């Protein structure tokens, strides 16, 4: 029903009509009218973060763990610029966000007013789309369109910049269905001819592999269900990118583990040696492909992606299928079944024999230590003691992130929140806050490194204020572990600025915020300490002192192909050539 109201009231009304329950934000001069409206209602919960970057990552965690768009509200100028890292992170990982920013009044735009920044200019390359709304009458339609754009096609962050006078002025509110159909309608059905061609290839393939990514999770739980059905029915092996973990259960017997730079030996060699690669919702990221020229040299490649620009961007594929993963998987299964459920059984049997031989290498093995806690051991114990819980995991970025991906098992989608594309240190803690808000009864753990964690440690205030029992599991090696590892491999062990000096006492830090701190540096005490963390009803900072110079393996050195993996410390001198050294 259309009705007259102020722009500020429209914002709150539109959020309600879009089904928004939680907004992450931080007030300031240019959003005061909206905050005044938030004050006068109870339908939408506002979570006050301690820094705008934290608001965006929290909204990402909320979105990733629920499948719903995350909503952020920040002020103009520094409020908007502080949000930029989070927005870029959401763009690279295709997370649906609606970010609302205040702006100086329209008549002051361009005068370098107080807290004025060209927010739509700054965020144009890091949003899926953005709008500066100069008329209150256009605000409601823009808000509804923003939700449509953020969640349709390949999801992503959108931003609406709302000048303060537009918030004060009155206009006509139109509800979501009254706004008219948007011209933005990405194609969701894949081309049936190409899907049939892919099914034909699947029937003949001797060495097929499913290579899945975040697109399966973005497509929704039904897509993960269809993927599981397809894998079980065909018996093909499946690997996944960092972003796709959980779409297929880690306990499944077709599961090869994660692939890529720190992926499993069997997963990477299966990619290198396959004759049919079926990419479902992944994007041939450089962490996956290694050296392009030697990437899976003898395979026919199919690529299912909802974004046409992902096709042939990095790797030329033979069967491009543009469409939503869920829709395409449904068609694939239907066509494969109607053609008699055929696979190349002798070929597959041989292929699994090869894969089993690769599995014998046991690429994740490490030397346990009776004296110090190995980070891998810490994660094995965390996995053993939490896997039966209703559990969500977030991570920061670095070695701990890769170890978490290797050693934790995900049985369901939307349970694993990590910064994949942008690699944002400081992501995991605020993301865990967003996840916990969406799932108040669940166990939410942020696996962190001490350096990443310190980047957004101010959010301790948020967790204590809202009594969010998030567990901060910090693998503390007093190093920027991944930087240190690269300096060891690439820069002659000259560890330039890659150690964490003057670290806080994390237990006292937790107590200073009114939370619980746990310290553990002895492998014998680890289980009890982890149980103490799980059983504490409230936020915990767990300072787990681990081996300082542990390297993360397996590793494909930059500039090398999949079959040139390093499996342990023995082989690490001069592994990266000069052409690989320029890569990151």
């Amino acid at each position, binding site marked *: 029903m259309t009705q007259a109201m102020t722009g500020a009231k429209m914002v709150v009304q539109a959020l309600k009509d879009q089904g928004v329950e939680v907004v992450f934000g931080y007030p300031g001069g240019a959003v005061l009218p909206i905050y005044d409206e938030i004050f006068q209602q109870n339908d939408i919960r506002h979570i006050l973060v301690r820094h705008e970057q934290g608001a965006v990552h929290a909204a990402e965690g909320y979105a990733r763990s629920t499948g719903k768009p995350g909503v952020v509200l920040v002020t103009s100028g520094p409020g908007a610029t502080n949000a930029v890292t989070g927005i870029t992170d959401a763009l690279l990982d295709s997370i649906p966000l609606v970010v609302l920013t205040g702006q100086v009044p329209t008549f002051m735009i361009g005068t370098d007013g107080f807290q004025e920044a060209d927010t*739509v*200019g700054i965020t*144009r*390359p890091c949003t*899926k*789309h953005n709008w*500066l709304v100069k008329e209150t009458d256009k605000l409601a339609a823009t808000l509804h369109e923003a939700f449509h*754009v953020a969640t349709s*096609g*390949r999801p992503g962050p959108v931003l609406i910049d709302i000048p303060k006078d537009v918030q004060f002025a009155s206009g006509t509110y139109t509800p979501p269905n009254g706004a008219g159909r948007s*011209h*933005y309608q990405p194609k969701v059905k894949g*081309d049936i*001819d*190409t899907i049939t*061609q892919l099914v*034909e*290839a699947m029937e*003949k*393939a*001797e060495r097929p592999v499913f290579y899945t990514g975040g697109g399966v999770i973005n497509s929704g739980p039904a897509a993960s269900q269809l993927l599981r059905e397809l894998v079980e029915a065909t018996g093909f092996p499946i690997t996944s990118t960092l972003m796709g973990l959980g779409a297929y259960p880690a306990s499944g017997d077709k599961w090869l583990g994660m692939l890529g730079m720190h992926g499993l030996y069997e997963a990477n060699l299966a990619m290198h040696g396959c*004759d*049919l690669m079926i990419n479902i919702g992944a994007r041939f990221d450089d962490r996956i492909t290694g050296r392009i020229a030697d990437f899976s040299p*003898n*395979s*026919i490649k199919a690529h299912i992606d909802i*974004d*046409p*620009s992902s*096709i*042939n*961007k990095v790797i*030329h594929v*033979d*069967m*491009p299928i543009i469409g939503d993963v869920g829709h395409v998987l449904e068609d694939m299964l239907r066509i494969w079944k109607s053609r008699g459920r055929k696979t190349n059984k002798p070929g597959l049997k041989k292929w699994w024999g090869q894969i089993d031989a690769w599995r014998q290498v046991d690429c994740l093995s490490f030397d346990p230590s009776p004296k110090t806690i190995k980070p891998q051991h810490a994660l094995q114990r965390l996995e053993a003691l939490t896997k039966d819980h209703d559990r969500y995991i977030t991570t920061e970025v670095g070695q701990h992130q890769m170890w978490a991906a290797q050693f934790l098992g995900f049985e369901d989608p939307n349970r694993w929140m990590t910064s994949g594309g942008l690699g944002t240190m400081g992501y995991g803690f605020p993301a865990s806050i967003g996840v916990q808000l969406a799932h108040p009864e669940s166990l939410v753990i942020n696996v962190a490194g001490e350096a990443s964690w310190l980047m957004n440690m101010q959010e301790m205030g948020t967790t204590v204020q809202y009594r969010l029992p998030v567990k901060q599991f910090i693998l503390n090696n007093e190093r920027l572990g991944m930087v240190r590892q690269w300096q060891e491999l690439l820069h002659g062990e000259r560890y330039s600025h890659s150690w964490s000096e003057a670290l806080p006492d994390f237990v006292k830090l937790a107590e200073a915020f009114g939370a619980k701190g746990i310290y553990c540096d002895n492998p014998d005490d680890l289980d009890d300490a982890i149980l103490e963390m799980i059983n504490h009803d409230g936020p915990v900072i767990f300072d787990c002192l681990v081996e300082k110079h542990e390297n993360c393996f397996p590793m494909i050195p930059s500039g090398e192909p999949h079959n040139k993996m390093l499996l342990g410390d023995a082989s690490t001198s001069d592994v990266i050539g000069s052409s690989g050294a320029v890569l990151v």
Partner: protein
Amino acid sequence: MSPLQIQKGTSRHSAYDLRDPHSDVEEVHTLAVLVDNEAGVLARVIGLFSGRGYNIESLTVAEVDHEGHLSRITIVTTGTPAVIEQIKAQLGRIVPVHDVHDLTVEGPAVERELALFKVKGSGDKRVEALRLADIFRANAVDSTLESFVFELTGTSAKIDAFAELMRPLGLIEMARTGVAALSRGV
């Protein structure tokens, strides 16, 4: 051919496959992009080219449908076939972009550019400039006793050729609109 008997590079719905997708040869393509005429849309298109390292040889933009608030951007760009395909896909996913047409591969097209030339001279050179302008069907749209401004419409190559001829005859300033293009026929 692979062991699976599928011809590499097969995908049946694109003119892309008529060319070698792995070619390293740079091609010149003229793209017509229909966009919502809203604030910032040109910045989005230009930002895409600069942000992803693509080339812009020429770019023109103007509203073509006042009722529908639609503008047409004509871009001349260069790149290998793979890069050109990527440019089109990237343009296509900009939200206010309605349609992307590659006039270079979608059949014959007409391309025209308008240019203004200021030529300063006297005596024989002045007469020669006027004579050449006549050959090129350029119009003198301003004249003083020591200068002309010629207006010339044509392909970019024709404008380049005229500029080359005018240079020794006293060309002191030049303005070009960039290419506007339409496909031939209906």
